[in-house]
């Protein structure tokens, strides 16, 4: 479903992403880990067609992002880091706008998509409120709702549970898990338990390169009995 082939991104002379290659199949939830500045967000921005890769490409559902970015964008639901949104719009207006650009042109189709996304992310109490007046967690949920709105076959989520309360974290995790049976999901996170709880595969990147690509069970087996963050630390220590 997602084929990432040798992605490279240069910022000046700095190699933010340095030849990242992996694939994600339908039904998989890929946990994207790595220290701050490792290149997780940059990789996601290239997969979603927001950034032009310096080299390499990503194929999403058969479409090459460097050849046909709009086709790729149609198939991806993307939650950018820190969930940007048009602050002066209400939640309803904002999701309505997303629905319309995602091709739900009739008023009924739009309302039903918006209602579905609002229901999934429990945004009902704030739907008439402007986004700039929402708390951080609610803003994050608006970003999540926006990504789910068109029920895309591919989800790319940059720290989806960032800023959520423990209940919502659980809620979002089970939501992702339930949806993932017919989707391919990439999510980045700094919470290692999250990986254990929902991911079917782990990738750790460090200084722009993939250093680990395996199942959570194998990852744990690297140091039986050790805490995941200890294993993570030993793998990424060079990264300071």
């Amino acid at each position: 479903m997602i084929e990432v082939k040798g992605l490279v991104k240069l910022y000046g002379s700095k190699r933010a992403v340095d030849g990242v290659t992996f694939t994600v199949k339908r039904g998989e939830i890929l946990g994207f880990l790595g220290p701050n500045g490792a290149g997780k967000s940059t990789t996601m921005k290239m997969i979603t067609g927001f950034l032009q890769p310096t080299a390499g490409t990503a194929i999403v559902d058969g479409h090459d992002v460097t050849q046909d970015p709009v086709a790729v964008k149609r198939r991806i639901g993307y939650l950018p880091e820190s969930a940007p949104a048009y602050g002066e719009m209400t939640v309803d207006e904002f999701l309505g706008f997303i629905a319309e650009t995602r091709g739900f042109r009739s008023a009924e189709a739009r309302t039903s998509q918006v209602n579905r996304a609002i229901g999934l992310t429990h945004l009902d109490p704030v739907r008439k409120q402007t986004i700039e007046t929402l708390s951080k967690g609610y803003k994050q949920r608006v970003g999540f709702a926006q990504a789910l709105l068109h029920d895309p076959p591919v989800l790319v989520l940059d720290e989806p549970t960032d800023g959520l309360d423990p209940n919502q974290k659980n809620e979002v995790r089970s939501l992702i898990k339930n949806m993932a049976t017919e989707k391919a999901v990439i999510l980045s996170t700094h919470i290692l338990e999250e990986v254990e709880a929902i991911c079917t595969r782990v990738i750790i990147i460090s200084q722009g390169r993939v250093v680990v690509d395996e199942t959570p069970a194998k990852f744990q087996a690297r140091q039986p009995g050790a805490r995941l963050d200890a294993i993570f630390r030993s793998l990424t220590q060079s990264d300071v």
Partner: protein
Amino acid sequence: MSQITPLFKREFLGYFRSPVGYVFLAVFLTASVILAFFVGGFFRSNTASLETLFNFYPWLFLFLIPAAGMRLWSEEKRTGTIELLFTLPVTTLQAVLGKYLAAWAFLALAILLSFPMAITVAYLGDPDWGVLISGYVGSILMAGAYLGVCSFMSALTKNQVISFVISLLACLILLFLGLSIFNNALSAVLPTWAVDLLANFSFSTHFAAFTKGIIDPKDVVYFLSLAGFSLFLNVVVLER
């Protein structure tokens, strides 16, 4: 084409979701009235026309259109919504056009709100409606050219103040090229044909005929191609 509609709607309504739009309209109208009636001597001129008002437009636009256009792209960049916008299934050209056309429609609204003054003119005298209409057509076209330049400039920076200042500067140069004082100074250093050529790129040179009731296709083409060229550069900078 249909992908432009939701972007247009969001941007246009956006002016009215915050005080920005109302403040702009109020300032624009107040400034028009003050300039036309008091500074321009609307009553003393003894002519039933809006020429006094239209003569001030190149100057009024110089400050107000950079103010209306500075947020177009700078704000998207500062708040990160540009990442949202460009991971929706729209091309850069569609996004640029959607936002530009919405801002242009908003400016046209501001200009047409001075129509009560036209009614006053009609009541007080016997105006030449042809001249009035060509004045409005010219004003709206000139606003479109100013706005194209400002839209391009705002794509260069995420800082709205910088965006305003460089837009003002660019418009100032385009305006000054047509002023006789400036051209006289220039003719000291440049051959006449070069000065004439430069004057040909000025807003004021091309606007003058409209205020006298002449809609010259050359002037129309000038304003439209200046806007078009600016928007082309706008797309190029965003895709960089």
